[in-house]
């Protein structure tokens, strides 16, 4: 893959030019499907776009000093990390050179939640600090399961390269890993039943409490991009390998859409859990399956 194709992937597909409208579309699908499931009509199609434009035109409170600069920087870092994660997804075939690397993708996916933690603490609002502390606790809980699932998938297929993973025929263990990733996604995307960090009304808006205007618009965008990256990761791992590139794109988009609908249904059907229940859920119930998956992978590797 030369520089031109790399730039095209980062900027056009599946990078920014595809990812930003897709982020708005997924945010709309989430709100609309939740509204339909609650018997409402829901927001119009362009709603996330209107929200974004409106937020760009709002003023922000004056921020001074290092904390102020940091507060402006966190949403930008989050957006670029999430956009980079989307750009790494191997939807189109590449030709040698740098190929989507699973470890880099995981690091980029993790960066927005790190930024949220830092943003809450640097805003110096008590609600932001509570939200950040919750986000940190949540991260410690779900990431163990999430990483074990990814590692078990990678170890069962003997590679950490995303492109090679997408090409290999899927095994039973891979589907087990995908199920574990799906269980972790509501926590990663802060939707019900794990919407603890930004718990609306309960702790105002959590880490976002002090954000306004264009900075808040960037947070909304990074949230949408996280949706695209996380559902895209599942779509890449679960999707069958096809030779025609356009068919691959169609399958990628359709699978991502299905994951969004599934997560929205879960969000509409559940209420917010308390933080101790959430931690117990991940450490007691889910971790067992993740450990089972990774130990069976190791067992199979020693056998073969």
């Amino acid at each position, binding site marked *: 893959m030369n520089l031109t194709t790399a730039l095209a992937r980062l900027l056009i597909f599946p990078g920014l030019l595809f990812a930003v409208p897709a982020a708005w579309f997924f945010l709309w699908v989430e709100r609309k499907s939740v509204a339909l499931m609650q018997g409402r009509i829901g927001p119009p199609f362009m709603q996330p776009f209107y929200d974004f434009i*409106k937020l760009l035109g709002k*003023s922000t*409170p004056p921020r001074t000093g290092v904390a102020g600069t940091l507060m402006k920087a966190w949403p930008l870092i989050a957006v670029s990390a999430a956009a980079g994660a989307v750009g790494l997804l191997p939807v189109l075939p590449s030709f040698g050179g740098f190929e989507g690397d699973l470890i880099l993708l995981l690091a980029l996916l993790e960066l927005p939640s790190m930024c949220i933690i830092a943003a809450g603490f640097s805003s110096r609002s*008590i609600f932001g600090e509570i939200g950040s502390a919750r986000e940190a606790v949540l991260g410690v809980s779900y990431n163990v399961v999430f990483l074990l699932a990814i590692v078990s998938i990678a170890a069962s297929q003997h590679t950490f390269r995303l492109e090679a993973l997408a090409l290999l025929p899927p095994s039973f263990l891979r589907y087990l890993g995908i199920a574990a990733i799906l269980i972790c996604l509501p926590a990663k995307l802060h939707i019900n039943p794990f919407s603890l960090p930004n718990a*609306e009304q309960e702790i105002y808006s959590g880490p976002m409490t002090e954000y306004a205007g264009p900075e808040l618009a960037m947070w909304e965008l990074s949230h949408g991009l996280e949706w695209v990256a996380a559902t895209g990761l599942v779509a890449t791992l679960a999707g069958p390998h096809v030779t025609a590139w356009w068919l691959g794109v169609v399958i990628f988009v359709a699978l991502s859409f299905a994951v969004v609908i599934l997560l929205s249904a879960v969000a509409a059907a559940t209420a917010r859990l308390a933080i101790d229940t959430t931690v117990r859920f991940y450490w007691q119930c889910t971790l067992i399956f993740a450990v089972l998956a990774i130990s069976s992978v190791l067992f199979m590797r020693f056998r073969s």
Partner: protein
Amino acid sequence: MNLWNRLMCYSRRRSPWLFHMNSGSCNGCDIELIASLTPRYDAEQLGVRLEGSPRHADILCITGPVTHNAVNAVKTVYGQVCGPKAVVAIGSCPATTNVFIDSRTLDGPLNRHIPVDVFVPGCPPRPDAIIQGIAAAAGILAERAAKKPVAEQTTEPAVVPETSEVKL
């Protein structure tokens, strides 16, 4: 008016985010405001979202006759909402202090303290009336965008200086 300003006007009319504040209300209007977001009335069709933080909001919805205790809170929250902003007074209490008129515990009505854009009278007003008021306030926001370029909007009519530390 150039294209960007027209888009901004349109977006402001289509995406009013609310912050709800109780300044000593009996809770009747608060219930009606929540009812306007429920499936029967579904204000989200207009892009309405109830936000947790006043920093995110465009429209400040205030209920209640403004008690002495609530005056400073009302002014602080009004200062925390970032411009351009509009204020909707929900119910008869913030408009006229209603049946509590001449009470020694009150410092109302609301427009003695902050500028109010839309009054929604009623005790309590119906949810459809509240939605109509919010839509009118969103129209006012769009008009403000049309008259002034976005960069010229000033941040602060903050009445009470904010401190960064929160006292518990």
